[in-house]
């Protein structure tokens, strides 16, 4: 087949090493602007107390903890089920631009932002928790499911009767071809759902994060350790207890359990008020729309919001994100060989595995929260937390790839550091860069969200606006957050294409545990 090659993108050709160097240089240049103050109190004494508590976990509140754990699972299952069903229904429509835009918009806002918005409408209730997970997940599921459908063999659908209806053809000749991929992805998303659900506790929902927050505030570090242990056990054993035949039972049990929860009553008409009044910019809400004066005031309002809140928030968000991205890169480069037996030995690799599993299964928000308790509110805990968490994820995926690389190496291949430097790193470097660029957008979104902890990123301003019951401002700030993530996603995609690493990482490689699930 003759085909005219598509015109290549002409960006300044840094090459692969140059691209990484550019990111590092940018991060170094941003360092003076970053706020890395360690707050007044002595972090090391605090750290010592924490370490002591962590080494002597205190399970005395086991009744409360068990309930919080069960609720964490229940919120995750209901949220993921609702999100997956919606995404499943949207997936065949994903090629229509309005559906695609809608999905991009809902998934670019973090679960926690959804939660604090929903709190204004549905209060501290089951609905808030489930929707906070389900809404962004629906957007993610729609995208991923539609990609799986596109990748499936198109020939069966082409062999269907010419006038068969769309729905029948979809269910008979498209869906079964992608069903297995759907299942694997669903299981991975459930793991993410457990993380999200735990983190929702930080805004007041009765999951593990709530207990963690409470114990931390009381300085009960032994109990904190107990919460963390229960959480890790939940995540680590998920693939053992989450069996497909049991899924309907889990779902029903979760719904039943949720139904027993009492939630504080909301004033009637909260939704109507939210849509017609709360989110309307204040000058428009209070002024006469026909009066030009109103629009002048609206302009001032927008100017104030954009330049005094959105801009500093966005700047801080990007500083945190760029620094965290580089830290994540270094964590990944140092971390992935720790998973490869011929590099660090059997014992070393076991330790590496444990370290990276903890790093990647602790939600970035929880890590940031813990780091914040140690270092006080500055950009430092955010950079450390995001760098560690994302670095551990990239390292895990690279470790898996390098295991395959190593299988195919010549028998007299070197071992140890030489193996890493001469054989593994050169082969894995392209994937490393691709994965970092994939995580870039995610890191930006997470940088915005850690603002809820008091670090001056966009989340900080969103949180303040909501606490002042200025939902209109929160909405504008969230739109800025959304645009920032979408822009970074676009830049990352162009960059990956320009340096020719776009095809190096398939979506399957981005799903931690996908191959393990397939083997199970």
């Amino acid at each position, binding site marked *: 087949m003759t085909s005219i090659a598509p015109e290549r993108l002409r960006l300044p050709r840094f090459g692969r090493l140059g691209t990484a160097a550019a990111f590092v240089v940018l991060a170094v240049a941003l360092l003076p602007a970053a706020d890395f103050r360690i707050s007044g109190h002595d972090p090391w004494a605090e750290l010592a107390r924490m370490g002591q508590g962590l080494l002597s976990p205190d399970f005395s509140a086991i009744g409360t903890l068990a309930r919080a754990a069960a609720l964490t699972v229940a919120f995750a299952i209901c949220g993921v089920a609702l999100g997956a069903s919606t995404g499943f229904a949207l997936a065949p429509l994903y090629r229509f631009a309005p559906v695609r835009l809608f999905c991009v918009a809902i998934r670019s806002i973090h679960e926690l932002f959804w939660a604090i918005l929903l709190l204004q409408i549905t209060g501290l209730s089951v609905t808030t928790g489930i929707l906070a997970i389900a809404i962004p997940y629906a957007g993610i599921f729609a995208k991923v499911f539609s990609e799986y459908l596109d990748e499936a063999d198109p020939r069966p659908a082409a062999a269907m*009767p010419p006038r068969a209806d769309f729905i029948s053809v979809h269910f008979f000749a498209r869906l079964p071809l992608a069903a297995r991929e759907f299942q694997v992805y669903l299981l991975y998303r459930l793991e993410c759902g457990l993380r999200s659900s735990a983190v929702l506790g930080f805004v007041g929902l009765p999951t593990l994060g709530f207990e963690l927050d409470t114990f931390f505030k009381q300085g009960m570090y032994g109990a904190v350790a107990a919460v963390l242990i229960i959480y890790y056990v939940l995540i680590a054993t998920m693939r053992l207890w989450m069996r497909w035949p049991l899924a309907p039972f889990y779902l029903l049990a979760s719904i039943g359990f949720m139904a027993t929860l009492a939630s504080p009553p909301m004033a009637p008409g909260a939704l109507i008020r939210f849509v017609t009044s709360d989110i309307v910019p204040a000058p428009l809400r209070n002024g006469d729309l026909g009066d030009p004066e109103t629009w002048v005031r609206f302009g001032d309002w927008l100017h104030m919001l954009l330049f005094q809140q959105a801009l500093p928030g966005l700047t801080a968000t990007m500083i945190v994100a760029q620094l965290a991205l580089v830290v994540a890169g270094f964590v990944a480069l140092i971390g992935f060989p720790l998973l490869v037996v011929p590099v660090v030995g059997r014992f070393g690799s076991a330790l590496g595995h444990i370290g990276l599993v903890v790093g990647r299964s602790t939600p970035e928000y929880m890590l940031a929260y813990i780091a914040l308790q140690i270092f006080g509110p500055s950009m430092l805990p955010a950079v450390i937390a995001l760098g560690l968490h994302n670095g551990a994820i990239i390292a895990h995926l690279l470790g898996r790839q390098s295991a395959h690389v190593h299988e195919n190496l010549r028998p007299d291949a070197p071992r140890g550091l030489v193996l890493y430097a001469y054989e593994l790193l050169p082969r894995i470097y392209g994937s490393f860069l691709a994965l970092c660029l994939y995580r870039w957008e995610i890191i930006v979104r997470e940088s915005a969200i850690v603002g809820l902890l008091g670090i001056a990123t966009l989340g900080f301003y969103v949180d303040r606006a909501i606490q002042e019951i200025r939902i209109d401002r929160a909405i504008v700030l969230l739109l800025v957050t959304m645009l920032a993530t979408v822009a970074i996603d676009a830049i990352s995609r162009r960059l990956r294409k320009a340096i020719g690493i776009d095809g190096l990482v398939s979506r399957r490689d981005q799903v931690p545990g996908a191959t393990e699930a397939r083997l199970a």
Partner: protein
Amino acid sequence: MLQFSGEALAYGDHTVLSGVDFNLRPGERVVLLGRSGAGKSTLLNASYRRLAETHPDIALVPQEHGLVPQLSVFHNVYMGRLDAHGALYNLANLVWPFPAQRRTVASVLETVGLAGFDRKAVESLSGGQKQRTALARAIHRGGRVLIGDEPVSAVDERHAAALVDELATRFETVLLALHDVGLARRVATRLVGIRAGRIVFDLPSAEVSDGDIHDLYRA
């Protein structure tokens, strides 16, 4: 019912057949002959696409079968008539097949030699069994016209002849590509020879000499 006059048929941007003069009349059984890569599949696909617009009652056996490996033989055969029912009825049959549909499909499976295979997943079948499933789907679909791209290539000779005879009795008009010349002579009312992107002969079966066919396949 189908007419190409002097047309070029392309696959994507790549012209596979040029100057195609070809027609198909009701009641004809036409077999395309030629080496692989000569352009038979292109002509078949173009014919299917054009005929489907005017004759929705057309059945197809594509080259790679176009089966859904994860579904059972029953479901794959049932799919031949997805257009005969509404989406709800089809979905119900996907989840829990109606006994009446099971019986209808079972009788079709018997004619292609797959009796008792209806609950087996297609991915667990051999190549020949998969091809029979694709044939069963076309037979279950029925209609006036059948288009088949090497529909019996994976079946042994004796059964192939019986299956092609079966197709000839079930469909009024048949357009096939076959590599077995004997089988082609047995079923066809007209033979079309394709060589290097051109139709080199288009004659009633009896008027095609062995020499014509030999020329078609020589290097």
